[in-house]
C-alpha cells in the first residue's frame, strides 16, 4: 500500500487555496523519483475524486474546480512530453468523442470534462464548440469511440442534441455508440437528458469518467466487439 497521504493532502490544500504553482511543484517533486504518470495515478487522481465529491456536495467554488482542471491539464502535458514516442503513450487508450452541440459556445464545462477524462486515462477527441450531429457521429465512427459526450448550456441548444440521437439512429449505431449529455441545463432539468435522446448524464464534470465507463460497458453488452 502506498503511503502518500501527506502528498495528497498538500496537493488538495494547495488546490483549495488556488496555488497552481505550488501544486505543480508538489507533483514535480513526487514525480522526480517515480514518473509523472505515477504522480497522476497515485496523487492527483485520488485528489480529483475528492474534489468531485466536494463539488457534488456544493462544497467547492467554481475557481477551485477550475484550478483542479488546470493542474490536471498541466500534469497531462508533462506526461505527454515525458512519454513521447514511448510504449506507454502507445498503450491502448479507449477513445471517446466530446464537444459542445451545434450553436452552443459555452465551453467551460466541456473543457473540464476533457481534462478529467484524460486524467482518468481516456483518449479524448474534443471537437470544440458548435459541433454538428454528423461531425460527432463521423468522428466517433472514425476513432472507434463507443461514447459521445455532448455538452449544452441552454435549453434551446440542448434541443439540438436530438439531432445526434437521430443521426445515430439513421446510421444504425444506437446501442453501439452511447450518448452522454451534460451542461448547466441538465443540472436544472435532469429529465431533459432522456428527452433529448441521451443515454445518461452526470451531475458534474468530475463524474464524467464514471458515466463514460458505465456507458462503454453498456455498449459492449449490447454490441460486443
Amino acid at each position: 500500500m502506498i503511503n502518500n497521504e501527506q502528498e495528497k493532502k498538500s496537493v488538495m490544500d494547495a488546490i483549495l487555496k488556488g496555488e497552481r504553482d505550488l501544486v505543480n511543484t508538489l507533483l514535480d517533486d513526487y514525480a522526480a523519483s517515480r514518473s509523472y504518470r505515477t504522480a497522476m495515478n497515485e496523487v492527483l487522481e485520488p485528489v480529483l475524486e475528492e474534489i468531485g465529491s466536494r463539488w457534488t456536495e456544493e462544497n467547492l467554488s467554481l475557481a477551485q474546480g477550475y484550478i483542479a482542471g488546470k493542474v490536471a491539464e498541466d500534469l497531462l502535458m508533462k506526461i505527454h512530453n515525458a512519454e513521447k514516442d514511448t510504449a506507454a503513450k502507445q498503450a491502448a487508450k479507449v477513445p471517446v468523442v466530446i464537444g459542445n452541440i451545434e450553436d452552443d459556445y459555452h465551453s467551460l464545462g466541456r473543457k473540464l470534462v476533457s481534462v478529467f477524462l484524460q486524467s482518468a486515462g481516456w483518449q479524448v477527441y474534443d471537437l470544440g464548440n458548435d459541433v454538428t450531429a454528423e461531425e460527432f457521429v463521423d468522428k466517433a465512427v472514425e476513432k472507434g469511440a463507443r461514447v459521445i459526450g455532448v455538452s449544452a448550456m441552454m435549453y434551446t441548444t440542448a434541443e439540438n442534441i436530438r439531432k445526434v440521437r437521430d443521426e445515430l439512429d439513421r446510421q444504425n449505431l444506437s446501442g453501439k455508440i452511447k450518448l452522454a449529455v451534460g451542461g448547466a441545463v441538465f443540472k436544472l432539468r435532469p429529465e431533459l437528458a432522456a428527452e433529448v435522446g441521451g443515454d445518461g448524464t452526470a451531475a458534474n464534470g468530475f463524474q464524467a469518467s464514471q458515466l463514460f465507463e458505465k456507458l462503454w460497458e453498456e455498449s459492449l453488452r449490447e454490441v460486443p466487439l
Partner: protein
Amino acid sequence: MTSMERVVAALQGTNSDKRAFTMTLSLYGAKLTGCPLTEYYTVPERYAEGQAAVADQCRPDIIFTPFALALEAQAFGSEIVFLTKDPPNVKKPFIRNPNEIGKIRVPDIEQQEGLLYLRTTARLLVEHFRGTVPVCGVLTSPMDLPAIIMGVDGWLEMLLFDREKTGTMISLMSEYFVSMANSMFDSGINFLAMPMMFTNPRLLFEKTIVEIVIPALAEMFGKLKGPIVFHHGGNPLAGYLQHYLSLPNIGGFVLDSHDDFSEARKTVGQNMLLLGNLDGPSLGKISPADAVEKARKILDNRKEDNHFIFATSSADVAWYTPMETITGIYNLIQHCGA
C-alpha cells in the same frame, strides 16, 4: 399607503399598512400582454405595457426594468438569441481568449440599440408610475459582464492568472457601467439591482474577492448617483455579507432562497434592508397552495423585521407559473402588516 411609501417605510424601518412585496415579473409582463419576446425585449413601449399589466394584475410594490442581461453583452459584441418563453441569452461570447481583449470597445450608450432600449424602458416606467411605485433598474454586475463577453472560462482564466489584463478589463467595464447606471438614475429609477456572481466565494477565491473584486466595485459604486440592491445572483449570500458591507451606496441585499435571514442579520445589523427569499424561477413547479405556504413561512420568520421586503429570489418568475400562484401570494401579503 402607496407602494413607494411602503418601500420607503421598509428602508427606514417604520411601520406600514402591510408588508412591502415584489416578485421578479420582468418576463411575466409579456405573458400578461401576449407580446412576443422578440418585441418585448426590443421595443420599450411593449415592455412598459407589460409592466403596466403586471402592476394592474399582480400589484407588486416594486417594478423592474428588463431583466435582460444578455442585451448588455450584445452591446459589447456578443451574439444573443431571443427565446420564446425566457429572456434573451448569450449564444456566442464576443471573444474567447484573454489575448483578444484589445478587440473590446466600450459601447456608446446613446447609440447602441440594446442599451437605448434599456434606458428608454427605464424612462417610460418612471413616467408611467409617476413616483407611486418604485422603479428598480436592473443591470449586469460589472464583474460579471466580462463572463458574457468572453465566456466564463475566459474571464476566470484572466481573473486568476493575469492581473494586468484583469485591470484593463475592469477599466473597460467601469467606464461602461458607471455611465449606463447613472443614465438610468438620470431617467428617474429609484435604485439599481444587480445579480452579483463573480463577487461570491462560491465562484471565486476569497483572496481574489478581497484583492481585486471589492476594490474595483468600491470605486465604481462610489461614482453612482443612487443606491444599489445587491442581489445574490443565484448563490447563497448570507454567509459572505461581511465582504460587501464596506461598499458604497449599498441600499440592501436580496438573499438566496437557501439563505438564513437571522444569519444575515447578525452580519448586516438591524437597519440594513433585506429582501427575498422565495425562489422565483421554481414557483411554477409547485402548486399555488404550496407556493403560498412557502411564502407564509418566510413572512412568519420575518414578522418582527421592519427592514424587510418580501421578494422572490434568483431570476425571473418563470413563464409557466400560474397566475393563481401570484395572486395567492398577493392575497397573503394583504394580511401581513409591517
